[in-house]
């Protein structure tokens, strides 16, 4: 009950997607001081296994200092900090291996792990994610079986209360969680998550499955999958949805954490506002065609060849909050709408059922509130209208007949 009241309160006080881009000089002054102090302190600590000097590692990857500083100033902008913070952000990036990260995989496709590992010409974001102090990640670590479990125990023990827990994938709750188990002891995903999150400094849910249930939770949701925020209470939680979550946003969150020691400002769905405070539609290069009413009617037509708006082939940009229209994917090369297919709203709850269609939502079959048959809203409406018209027709005819036989006198 207290939870509910809290929820309702939040509902009415949250600023939803509102983004505060300028908090005033005094605020930044203070923030700068505290961040600087924090960075200095971190610099004195040595990472557990001082595996590499990030500076030279970046150099090896073909990233020179100049590129790196350009990237740092872009990240500063993304995090909505004044440009004076750029050197601090650069420092924080070089200290990324001081942030121990444990990465869990639950009901998922490992797409987010893939996203951070993209090897074909990785961008600085991906390189940095490679060298964070990833203490445990089933997909990419060498250890397996009991060894892996041991490594996890070690990591939890060594970094108690300090590590960031990244969670990828939904949590199946059906059958007492037996749809997903892990390890030799067949620990359910739910128990696994609960045990490992207990000593985490903060939990970051990456990808749409870990945040809102995503594809595993799509209707009819046979395993009763849910997102982390449904089951985890009393821990700082950051949601980074999208399918996959953009590596730039993961780096943003980690850097923000290193820099300030805090979670960034979140919206009502616990998504960092620096990343999810923008609507796709408002930063889309095809928006002029939307306003002009020029649409791709079908794949490959005149409109498609002329980069017209993808609304009629199902773009859900008007209902989707994400920054991929600004920072894009793969070294900022391109993004879905840029390559000519609509947004499927991957960063929104329920996206698989309500966004990922190649038609506008009004012509998509959705479940009637009563369950059962699937209809488009217009079919539903026309059905309602037909039923009403038939009723009215019967009533009209009956009235006329009754009126004749009765033959009242006025």
């Amino acid at each position, binding site marked *: 009950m207290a939870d509910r009241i809290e929820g309702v309160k939040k509902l009415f006080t949250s600023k939803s997607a509102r983004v505060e881009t300028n908090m005033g000089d005094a605020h930044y002054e203070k923030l700068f001081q505290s961040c600087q102090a924090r960075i200095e302190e971190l610099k004195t600590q040595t990472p557990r296994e001082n595996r590499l000097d990030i500076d030279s590692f970046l150099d090896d990857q073909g990233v020179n200092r100049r590129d790196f500083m350009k990237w740092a100033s872009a990240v500063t902008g993304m995090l909505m900090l004044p440009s004076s913070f750029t050197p601090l952000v650069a420092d924080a990036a070089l200290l990324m291996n001081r942030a121990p990260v444990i990465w869990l995989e639950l009901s998922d496709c490992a797409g987010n792990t893939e996203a951070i590992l993209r090897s074909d010409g990785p961008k600085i974001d991906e390189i940095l994610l490679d060298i964070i102090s990833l203490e445990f990640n089933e997909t990419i670590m060498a250890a397996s079986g009991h060894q892996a479990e041991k490594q996890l125990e070690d990591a939890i023990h060594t970094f108690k209360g300090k590590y960031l827990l990244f969670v990828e994938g939904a949590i199946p709750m059906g059958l007492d969680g037996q749809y997903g188990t892990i390890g030799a002891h067949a620990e359910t995903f739910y128990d696994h998550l609960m045990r490992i999150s207990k000593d985490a400094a903060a939990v970051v849910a990456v990808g749409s499955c870990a*945040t809102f249930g995503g594809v595993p939770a799509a209707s009819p949701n046979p395993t009763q999958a849910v*997102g982390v925020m449904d089951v985890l209470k009393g821990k700082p939680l950051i949601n980074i949805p999208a399918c996959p979550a953009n590596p730039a946003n993961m780096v943003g969150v980690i850097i923000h954490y290193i820099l300030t020691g805090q979670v960034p400002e979140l919206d*009502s769905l616990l998504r960092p506002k620096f990343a999810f405070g923008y609507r796709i539609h408002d930063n889309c290069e095809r928006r002029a065609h939307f306003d002009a*009413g020029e649409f791709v009617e079908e794949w490959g037509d005149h409109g498609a060849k002329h980069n017209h708006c993808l609304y009629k082939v199902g773009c859900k940009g008007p209902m989707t909050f994400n920054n991929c229209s600004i920072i894009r994917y793969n070294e900022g090369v391109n993004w879905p709408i840029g390559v000519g297919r609509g947004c499927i709203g991957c960063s929104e*709850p*329920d996206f698989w059922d309500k966004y990922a269609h190649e038609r506008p939502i009004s012509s998509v079959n959705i479940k009637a509130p009563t369950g059962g048959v699937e209809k488009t*809203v217009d079919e539903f409406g026309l059905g309602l209208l037909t039923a009403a018209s038939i009723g009215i027709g019967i009533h009209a005819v009956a*009235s006329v007949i009754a*009126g004749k036989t009765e033959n009242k006198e006025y």
Partner: protein
Amino acid sequence: MNNTDVEYDDKLGSKRVRVRRMTFTMRLIHWVNVVSMIVAIATGLYIAEPYYQTLIADDAVDKYVMAWNRWGHFIVAIIFDVTAIIVSYLFFFSRFEKHYLKIIPNKKNIIEFWEVFLNLILLNRRKKFDSSHNDSFNAIYFIVFHIMLAWMLFTGLQLYVHALASGDSSIGAWWPWMLHLVTDWTIPFSSWLVGTTATGGNIMDVRIVHHMSMWIIIVWVLFHIYYQIWRTIFWQEGDIAIVVGGSKFMKVGSDGNKKVEDK
């Protein structure tokens, strides 16, 4: 109803009297609502799925088809806003006919509601209520409309406020702030109506519900128009004239109507 609202019409003889039912303002609001509703439906459906082909002409200088449709939709939305506020004021404070007196569930109103309903489904063979004033049945029916209109306003403004993602607007930050405050509840409510398997409501549900509610309003309008015409034909009191000239006729002392003393 007091007698000042009753005017004798000599041409009709003493059996019928003219009763005033809607003031000029009320009629004006009515027809503004009708026009707005037609525009809202036409533009709303275009926004949902642009239904006319716009590639007919080459790219032209002032081609803002979607923009104009959205503009039109918002303008009628604002008109609805304003009339909704006036109507809810009149609802309680009108010096003419106080509608809220008709929806209080007291014995008199329940009986009247029931009698009007019986009159409708028994095809006017039974009429045991006074049809000179606004009856409880119609009063409730109109309330239903106003609730649906308010619902459209809330869901519509929720959809609208998302275009103001920056939290600012041309008239200041208070505007999106206020809209979030008053309309954010429609998200979980819509999700509950549509049904969701995910955590956290989403705006798409609001949009689906906004669209669905439009159809329910259309059905409301259909029956409303039918019912007013039906009354006009079968009651023979010129009911439809209420919304045109503001008054109807009442058959004195018959069909459950009250008697009125001769002047």
